[in-house]
């Protein structure tokens, strides 16, 4: 959208006002993410500029034995398990939804996506009572199940989208050549829908790794996840340790972003080669 040479002065002014405005919005979006990084290298204990000096003490704090490392470990236990469960459940369901027409399909899809829509506090309170009744309150199992519920819609949506272009006759071809359904799934279907499965899984992982409301309700201090630790850190005493952990998380989100972008490009290339 370059400015044409015949643009009137008013259009020129408008063009630059518009670009400046957009630049400011982008600045607004990225500043908070960038501002927190240098603070993590502060040698002082306050989160203000200018920095008194450079130090890695806050990284030492979050990576040496203590609440930060414990909570990171907990999140690294819960998030991958919840992601795997969500990927397994979600992929099967998405394949089933696309395999045949059956009554109530729209309603079932709505059910599968609903955890994404219902306000988190309601999910949290509901699960709090339910897990208390069945003895899963304050347990890793409860936390994993809860995060599976929250992650599953992403997998269903992304796999569903990938399956839109999938030719199910390939499954018939596989079967007619003598492969059993399991082999058909792993050798024919899965390789083609893998980008959708993985990007859904990444969404599910990011959700679990950042989920604080439900975890606050159903986890005891033993299963304290990283987001809970961040939450109470921000609430009680906001120190550069939070900035250090934030920097680690920003690094992680950059990694997620790059992976998603690569998956998207691969998906587009595949689509392009078919057409």
């Amino acid at each position, binding site marked *: 959208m370059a400015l044409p040479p015949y643009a009137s002065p008013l259009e020129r002014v408008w063009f630059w006002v518009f*670009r400046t*405005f*957009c630049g400011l*919005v*982008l600045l607004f*979006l*990225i*500043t*908070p*993410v960038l*501002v*927190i990084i240098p*603070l993590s290298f502060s040698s002082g204990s306050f989160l*203000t*500029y200018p920095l008194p000096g450079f130090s890695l003490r806050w990284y030492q704090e979050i990576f040496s034995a203590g609440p930060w490392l414990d909570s990171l470990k907990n999140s690294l236990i819960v998030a991958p398990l919840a992601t795997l469960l969500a990927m397994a*459940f979600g992929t*099967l*369901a998405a*394949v*089933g939804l696309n395999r*045949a027409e*059956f009554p109530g399909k729209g309603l079932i899809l709505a*059910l*599968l996506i*609903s*955890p994404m*829509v*219902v*306000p*988190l*506090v309601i*999910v949290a*309170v*509901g*699960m709090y*009572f*339910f897990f208390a009744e069945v003895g899963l309150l304050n347990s890793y199992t409860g936390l994993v*199940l*809860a995060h*599976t*519920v929250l992650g599953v819609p992403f997998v269903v*949506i*992304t796999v569903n*989208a990938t399956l839109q272009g999938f030719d199910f006759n390939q499954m018939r071809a596989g*079967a*007619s050549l003598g492969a059993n359904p399991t082999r058909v799934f792993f050798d024919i279907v899965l390789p083609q829908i893998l980008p959708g499965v993985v990007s859904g899984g990444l969404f599910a992982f*990011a959700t679990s*790794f*950042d989920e604080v*409301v439900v975890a606050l*309700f159903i986890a005891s201090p033993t299963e304290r996840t990283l987001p809970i630790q*961040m*939450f109470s850190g*921000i*609430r009680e005493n*906001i120190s550069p340790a939070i900035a250090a952990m*934030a920097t680690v998380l*920003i690094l992680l*989100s950059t990694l997620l*972003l790059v992976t998603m972008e690569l998956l998207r490009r691969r998906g587009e290339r595949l689509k392009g080669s078919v057409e």
Partner: protein
Amino acid sequence: MASTLDPGAPAAQGNLKARLRRAERLRKLKAVGLVAPLALFLVIVFVLPIGSMLLNSVDNGSLRQVMPATAASLQEWDGEGLPEAATFAAFAEELRDSRRGGGLGSVGRRLNYEDSGFRGLLMRTLMGLPRESDDWRATLIDIDPAWGEGVTWRRIQAAAPPRTDRYLLASVDLERGADGEIQRVDADSRLYQAVFQRTLVIAGGVTLICLALGFPLAYLLATLPARTSNLLMILVLLPFWTSLLVRTAAWIILLQSNGLANQSLMALGLVESPLQLVFNRIGVFFAMVHILLPFMVLPLYSVMKGISPSYQRAAVSLGAHPFAAFWQVYVPQTVSGVAAGTILVFIMALGYYITPALVGGPADQMVSYYVAYYTNTTNNWGMAAALGSILLAVTLLLYLVYHRLVNRKQMIGS
């Protein structure tokens, strides 16, 4: 399935149709079988827990379990004068028993919602309760004259039926008066109207600001050459993927009284002393707009990406002013994106809890906060469920609208 596809199989003409039907049915069953595990899992761990939690909003509490005879005889009472002597006797008996079973606490809590002095009255009565009595009515009135007043018994009567609408009414600042008519509560105890209003104002305001910031940005990204726009898209996607808590912490750091925002304002000479920018409504708006803006930009972008620039050029070549061409030709084509983005952001904003709790003040807490508060702090589950039901109903209704407006493909495309 393999057999129906086997061309070598001898297919008798008559039953080919039946076999095809059967194969089709089998395929359907297999499809349902693939969806079933997840559907069942969600029903057990998600739908039923939330459903049964929301039923708390019409549950009248434990009086029926702890004092069944009292509840039953009070339900037959017409409310005139005092209940029969048998009611007094049943109550005295069950009050004494309630101490052992641990039911006294929950009955006291429930009756306190009717009148805040009730727990004390029960305790006092229990202290003075004799082992035996020939006339429980006289004995109880002797212990506390409140038992001689009809209103005391009418309050217990209100807690007797299994279901109640008091919590749902209370959540919209209504109550039942002495005669059972629905009326508004006293002006100074109208709490929830303000909470809902505040929730709508914050969610609506955040949505409008997101639209105002997101529309131009999405337009720019959709019209720039792919190389530049992909690069700028990173500035939208990186915050999108960054932890909500990280971004909330960053806003506290930026907006605090000696933070970068105030430092810059003072360096520019715009203000003399630091402004209070966080732990109030301003902080809530900054953080929430920042977190939700990508959810506005992405659907807008995907719709705008599909709009051909030729229409606008055609309008200009036909003599329209460029602004008119933009407003009358381009903008109407973006309506589905605008609708998707606004409803999505509004739905998400309605349920916000963590961000206002961290960057807002006491006067900036939204409905979710009160649901959590009543569950954790006061154990008033009826009130938590009633507020939660309203929040959920509004959210699901809006989601239905969203679903109607956006076809599934666009939602996935974003």
